């Protein structure tokens, strides 16, 4: 049950558009983690993890699960490098449709 309730169906469509559209699978080159990625431009990147991928990531495993100070929230450098690789290989299209 949603707590903030939209009053129109188009809002639900926007929600889907902004959070789900155009995500493409990218696998980490160093571990089993597979994430979904979107790039609106060279410098913009969205990375959508799943619980499964989060558990597969060796880097996060090492850092431990419990959020402590400020450092535990940093991205995994291996996964980021893997995404850069995928982008170079043309596996992740770059560019936005209409703000998403």
């Amino acid at each position, binding site marked *: 049950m949603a707590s903030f309730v939209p*009053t129109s169906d188009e809002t639900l469509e926007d929600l889907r558009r902004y959070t789900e559209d155009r995500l493409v699978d990218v696998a980490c080159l160093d571990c089993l983690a597979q994430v979904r990625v979107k790039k609106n431009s060279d410098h913009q990147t969205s990375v959508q993890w799943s619980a499964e991928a989060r558990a597969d990531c060796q880097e996060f495993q090492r850092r431990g699960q419990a959020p402590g100070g400020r450092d535990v929230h940093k991205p995994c450098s291996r996964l980021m490098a893997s995404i850069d690789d995928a982008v170079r290989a043309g596996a992740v299209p770059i560019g936005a449709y209409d703000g998403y």
Partner: protein
Amino acid sequence: MTDTRMLDQGTQPIRFARGWHCLGLASDFADGKPHAVQGFGTKLVVWQGGNGELNVLDGYCRHMGGDLTQGEVKGDHIACPFHDWRWGGDGKCKEIPYARRVPLRARTQRYETVVRNGQLLMWHDPEGSAADHELLPPELPDVMTDKYTPWSWHTKEINGSHCRELIDNVADMAHFYYVHFAFPTSFRNIFDGHTATQFMESKGRPDTMGGGYGDENSTLKSVATYYGPSYMINWLEVDYKGFITEVILINCHIPTGPTSFTLQYGISVRKPEGLDEKTCAYIAERYTESFGDGFLQDVAIWENKVAVQNPLLCEEDGPVYQLRRWYEQFYVDVADIAPEMTDRFEFEVDTTKANEYWHAEVADNLAKRAAAEADAEAAAPADA
């Protein structure tokens, strides 16, 4: 059918968020007197018992509705001003001095508490679960010691906005330029589990008088994490002409009604080496002032905007929809938390285009100002 986009204002939730909420500095409640705190659609009573423990109960006595915040602390208990029923921190009525026995059902709403970093936190859950200590914000090493200035703590009531407006700031890159007068040069978000983090680097605008996020001489590196729905720790590194100061800003709130909340913020500054106490206190005061101004800049916007369920975004905007999806987890039953609400999500905003435009605009503003000053000087009567 029309192409005009409609604002979907939606409906606000009827419940308050589940999670740890900060009520203020623990020391402010530790005087053996009852304190009133508005929160969660009611009034809470907070007091420290003789045993030193801080307690939070619903503020209204279950006997005849007396206002416990106007009562008296007697021993470990809070005594109602109406007929002197004595309530314990565990929510049970411990004694009715004029009665033979206490009714078995004499239990009121109590809230579990923890003191963390010198602040009193309470657990709120509409489902009535036991407090989850795993979800507490981390302890801040060295804060509350000699190495940091003591918390400078402030409270502000906000009316006419749901507290989600405050949360939206986490993903809002562009408002830092327009509302807080800074160039956000780097901007990232990570949402993960019950935390939501904003990483930002910014530089003050030279065409404004500073305020909030500093002037042209200062650059800021900021890491700000919400631990649950209402408690943010913001680690700030301010570089002012090469002089670096570490500031910790707590930004937290208590919802009071469906469209009102109490904003609280506290600042503690790592004392720079070699500076005396007075100078350290002065620096802390300046930062408190400027971040306080920053909140007022936001408040001015909130007080006049409407709620929007369907924000329309451009490519330079942050991940507002994902942030709200994360925030939703605190408003549904635990059993209804969907995986996507807590799944990790990372987002980097492309600030290139925005900063190109902003720098040109600022240069233009400075040129206009210089021209206006030159004109005013030429028009002024010669002062012999």
